[in-house]
């Protein structure tokens, strides 16, 4: 088990150090904006805010309401593309 976690830790470190994590983040962000995911969730945010009240809404409120929905709403095509890149990175640097 610890060999696994060691491997994961190494991969994560490499991912960050080589700047790939940042690039992947940027890629995901732009893809999600393109496909309207951001706007969808923002609209959902508006509902949450109107419900909780503009003055009283907390980060926690938003995180609890938005994150689960956000995960579900990511289009398959975007997931596929990101996974492809991640797998390519792993193939190059994980073995």
């Amino acid at each position, binding site marked *: 088990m610890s060999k696994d976690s060691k*491997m*994961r830790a190494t991969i994560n470190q490499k*991912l960050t150090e080589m700047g790939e994590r940042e690039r992947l983040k940027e890629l995901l962000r732009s893809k999600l904006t393109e496909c309207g995911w951001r706007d969808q969730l923002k609209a959902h945010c508006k509902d949450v*805010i109107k419900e909780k009240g503009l003055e009283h809404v907390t980060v926690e409120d938003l995180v609890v309401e938005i*994150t689960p929905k956000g995960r579900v709403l990511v289009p398959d095509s975007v997931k596929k593309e990101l996974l492809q890149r991640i*797998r390519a990175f792993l193939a190059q640097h994980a073995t």
Partner: protein
Amino acid sequence: MKMDEISMSSLDNSKLEGVAQDILSDLVEDACLGLCFEVHRAVKQGYFFLEDTDQETMRDFEIVDQPGVDVFGQVYNQWKNKECVCPNCSRSIAASRFAPHLEKCLGMGRNSSRIANRRIVTGNNTNNKSESDQEDNDDVNDNDWSYGAEKKESKLTQEIQII
């Protein structure tokens, strides 16, 4: 390829696939949190519902395009011809010349000490009251300084003679 080799590599593959999925999951979570923080800040800073402003109010904030006025509709060369009274010498100075005047008048700023030193030297030899930059106040100071300078100078010349 042997049987166990195949199964070993497929095990590795499924592990790697698991890692890939986890990485994706982290990235998505990151994106969600990022959005939450952005929205929350927009709410607290008051600009979240900005685009929902009604048409009429929006017209109040349109860019102004008139001569003599900036994009906010404010007059921008209002202070060109105003005059200010210097708190030090009580003279009336043009607004655009006020800052440099104050610098010299108060004896602050980069060149004030140089000018003052120059005056000590020249004020000593010629004792001219007609200064080129008309600061009457300084003439009073000049007398004090030149008196001191006079004393110093004579002392210095005396010393030289002795030697």
